[in-house]
């Protein structure tokens, strides 16, 4: 039973990840009074990239070839370990927040290495920026996760989502609201979205994530694009599961509720996509040298949330 749910959750995230990207793009197009491409386009992009030949520069090493596999593997692990459809199914040790943070960081580090391996200008620029951002994002990221862990009294994401799902909404979400806002800021930064990075830009000089993968083509590019889609999906669903912890499955409920849980999952993805599209359509990308301010706000938000929870515990 438990393994069925784990497998179902994993497959759903992997299958629907490109859809999330399609939904965000479609909604952004609507904000611009455009029709926009089909929400299924990211699937076609990945499939057509898989069939294309790869152009790999002579000046690259084995690192360049390993990166897509590592990055995709970390994303697939995240899809397995982050609760998206059900809770109470993963061992606490596997869903540990520090483990998940480290897996995400591993993917980032390899992306950075891939960007640097070809010695191309833009790759280096992107990698340098990514490391700068990572140094700014990680404190906020761990503070947010720790606060949630402290609040739930458990150090696994599965347990945290379970705590949110089992408690009355008004008792937990308002308390954690500052932390959740900080989490949103972190998610936007981690996934190279506004106001940190622009996933739709063609201007190499402004890129972060796109600059690192600029030298990749064909199946490797497909793997990296797919990994990015999975990461975005996982994090968005996690955020939605904390803000709206409804409709989640638990082994005790039995299998009958699976269709409902799936519909809720898709609805949360759509809502998350709408949220990202709204943010990206209404705000301007920030100046790169103001990122520390943005991330400081996130970190301080997380810290305030942390202190609030500590005070709550002592009372």
């Amino acid at each position, binding site marked *: 039973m438990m393994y069925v749910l784990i497998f179902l959750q994993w497959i759903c995230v992997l299958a629907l990840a490109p859809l999330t990207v399609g939904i965000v793009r479609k909604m952004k197009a609507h904000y611009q*009074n455009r029709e926009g491409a089909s929400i299924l386009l990211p699937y076609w992009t990945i499939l057509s990239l898989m069939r294309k030949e790869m152009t790999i520069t002579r000046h690259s090493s084995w690192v360049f070839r390993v990166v897509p596999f590592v990055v995709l593997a970390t994303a697939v692990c995240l899809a397995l370990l982050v609760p998206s459809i059900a809770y109470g199914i993963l061992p606490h040790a596997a869903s540990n927040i520090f483990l998940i943070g480290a897996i995400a960081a591993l993917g980032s580090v390899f992306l950075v290495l891939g960007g640097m391996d070809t010695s191309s200008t833009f790759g280096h620029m992107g990698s340098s*920026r990514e490391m700068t951002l990572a140094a700014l994002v990680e404190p906020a990221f761990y503070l947010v996760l720790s606060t949630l862990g402290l609040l739930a009294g458990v150090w696994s994401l599965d347990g945290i989502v379970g705590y949110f799902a089992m408690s009355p909404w008004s008792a937990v979400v308002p308390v954690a609201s500052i932390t959740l806002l900080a989490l949103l800021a972190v998610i936007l930064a981690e996934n190279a979205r506004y106001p940190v990075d622009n996933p*739709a830009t*063609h201007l190499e000089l402004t890129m972060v994530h796109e600059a690192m993968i600029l030298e990749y083509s064909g199946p490797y590019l497909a793997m990296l694009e797919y990994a990015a889609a999975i990461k975005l999906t996982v994090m968005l669903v996690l955020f939605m599961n904390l803000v709206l912890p409804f409709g989640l499955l638990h082994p005790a409920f039995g299998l009958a509720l699976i269709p409902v849980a799936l519909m809720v999952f898709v609805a949360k993805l759509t809502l998350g996509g709408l949220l990202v599209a709204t943010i990206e359509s209404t705000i301007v990308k920030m100046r*790169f040298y103001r990122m520390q301010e943005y991330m400081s706000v996130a970190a301080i938000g997380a810290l305030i949330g942390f202190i609030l929870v500590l005070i709550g515990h002592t009372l």
Partner: protein
Amino acid sequence: MDIRSLLSDIGLTSATGEAAVLVPVASFADMAHQCVAAGAPLVFMYATDERAAHKTYGVHAVFSVAVSGFLTLKCDVSAEDRTYPSLTRTIMAAHWYERLMHDQFGIVAQGHPDWRRLIHHENIPEGTYPLRKDFAVDTQLAHAQVPYPMHAVEGTGIYEIPVGPIHAGIIEPGHFRFNVRGERILSLEGKLFFTHKGIEKLVEGKLPAQALPFIERISGDMPVAHTLAFAEAVERACRTVVPKRARALRVVWSELERITMHIFDIGNIAGNGTGFTFMAAQGFRMVEELRRLHDSLTGHRFLRGAITLGGAHDISAEAVMDILNSLKKTEKDLQAILDIAFASDGLMERFETTGVLSREAAIDYGARGVAARASGVGIDMRRDHPYAGYADLGVLVATESSGDVAARFKVRAREVAESLRIIRSCLEKLPEGEAQTAVVVREGEALGWAESWRGAIIDWVRLDEGGRIDRCAISDPSFMNWALFGEIGPGNIVPDFPLCNKSLNLSYSGTDL
């Protein structure tokens, strides 16, 4: 200021200034400096090959004497020696022109502080001077490897970023070399001239009417301004008087081009430059509507064919109503998106203090158009040297003082408003009669000019006895403004460069005739 008093100031009491004033080679630089010091900026330099007649090359320097006209100083450089003292030593605005004249004619400006090649890249052999009369237009050049050094900064932690000439997106080719420390730009230099078409050479020996299509294609987004400057030069050389209706229509076409491209830039700067996609989507939609209007009026979306020699494309009374109705909608929509743009703190934060061009640099480099006006230099050919039908329109020149991207954005927004007023005022009292007169070609030479949406265009045309073009020198605003990046870039961070670039929106093709 008046040209005669300027001439007497610099010691040339006998000259009238109507034709080019011939001065000795030795005092050329000094007199040019005196003109600039007296408040008549150097706007244009060109050379001529007069070896057949006098065994000399002519080097011309054109000064803008607002509002009475242009003064041209000329010196004859001997064909053997080919040197004259550089003007750049005291006049920064001459720096690219002198390098250009060397690449075109092999004339050496002695004492030029940055004596490198300009339009010739590595692959052009030494001693190739294509605008000399004895250089055949179909010459096959050998592939050479001549050094083309670029500025470099050395030191710990300094990196060089080469960008282009091939870029993402649909833009023209151009290479940029950044020297950075972290993200901070220390120096920035462009290597352009990848789009050489040889237009100045190609039009030689052609009748003006045959040359017009070449001029129209110098830069795809400013055909009206380029053809207008050329047509005015030819008409002045041939002493043709253009009918009043054509003069008014020329204003209408010029201003339609300006409105369209300014709205494009407003959308492009705010939308693609900062990622505020809403502005790009709406701006480009409005541009498309205007392009369809152009198509319905002239049969060409980019207004090719709007300016003819001796006239302008004529329109019917219904077309007048079409223009007015379209512009009413454009004005309303533009106001709506500008309100949103100015209300966005994030957008204004990106614009302000980004890419600052100081007033001093704008004057020294001879910056043109929006770049100059946004830095507090109130120059505009439409007011300073009225042409076509601008004389009695009282053009208001929009200036800002901060010189940053925000200033250039605001200048564009204000200029659209002024252009709308000008078009309405022209269409209200559009003179009756013909919009075309015949241009009878004859020997002569003259300057022609126009304020394009990018800035001033100045053409100098000389027609031979048969009325064919002997020499046509063209000064495009992009040529003057590209060098500004050396001033604008440093101090900014690399991710802000595309925004600075879009705020100037220069033409690669227009720079490289």
